[in-house]
């Protein structure tokens, strides 16, 4: 996720500009402009959330490929046989769904609040936004990015 700090820096710059405009409009009681700026902020949040998500998804895929390569290289067939089904060099990882890819590097049974559960919640949010369902809520992109870094550190190779 080496590009995530750069993405966050750009997000913060844009949001700070919007925030300053909102404050100025609020100071003179211009409710229509405040409302218009808040809509821009919501859209901007969601655009940058999807960019940040792409960084996490790539980190998950990379860790998946590393795990597959490591297990396929095992001299022990009992370890190797299931992992031989997957081709780490295939763009789609031999057709594995995103949920299955995550399950190779995070514990699917770890319960609510676990990195697995968070990834799947964020994935659902990403799908809603990317498939055209803009959110009514703002996204605290900075806090979400901190969550992404914590998830990254929990990925098991």
């Amino acid at each position: 996720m080496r590009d995530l700090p750069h993405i966050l820096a750009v997000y913060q710059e844009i949001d700070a500009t919007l925030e300053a405009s909102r404050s100025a409009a609020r100071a003179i009681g211009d409710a229509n402009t405040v409302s218009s700026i808040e809509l821009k902020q919501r859209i901007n949040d969601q655009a940058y959330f999807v960019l940040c998500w792409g960084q996490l998804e790539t980190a998950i895929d990379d860790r998946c490929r590393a795990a597959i390569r490591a297990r396929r290289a095992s001299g022990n067939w009992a370890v190797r046989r299931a992992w031989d089904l997957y081709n780490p060099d295939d763009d789609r990882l031999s057709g594995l769904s995103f949920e299955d890819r995550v399950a190779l590097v995070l514990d699917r049974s770890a319960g609510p609040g676990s990195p697995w559960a968070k990834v799947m919640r964020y994935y659902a949010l990403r799908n809603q936004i990317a498939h055209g369902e803009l959110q009514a809520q703002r996204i605290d992109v900075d806090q979400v990015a901190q969550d992404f870094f914590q998830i990254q550190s929990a990925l098991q190779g």
Partner: protein
Amino acid sequence: MSGVLEETTSREIDKDHVVRRVDDWVGRIDRLYRQIEEWLPSGWTASRVGTVRMHEELMQKFGVSARNLPVMELSYNGKPSARVEPRGLWIIGANGRLDLFSGPGHYVIIDSAGNFEPADWQIAPLSDRRNLKPLNGQTLSAVL
């Protein structure tokens, strides 16, 4: 349902839940304002001046009436010098946000707790939102 992310990605929200969340938010703001009054350094006073209208989209979607939330003005030696105003409840990544304006400074106050849990208020400059610190008498004094 532990947080706003879970609410956003769940199909189980109903009007009763939204009403309870709004009531909880109103209560948390009231308790926060009372706490801020207790934390104010010498020479500072607080008063509730004006309101901001809360009618977030989830409230509109479920037919929940708008609410007016109080704005807190902080004065130093009788001169208005800072204000705290509610900004939003449903924010993915935070369980509500208020903004604190102090001179040229703009700070965000967010609740890091889960839904219906005791509030865990944190404060950070808007320009450095990852630099969150627990909101207490010391951190409040530092930004005033």
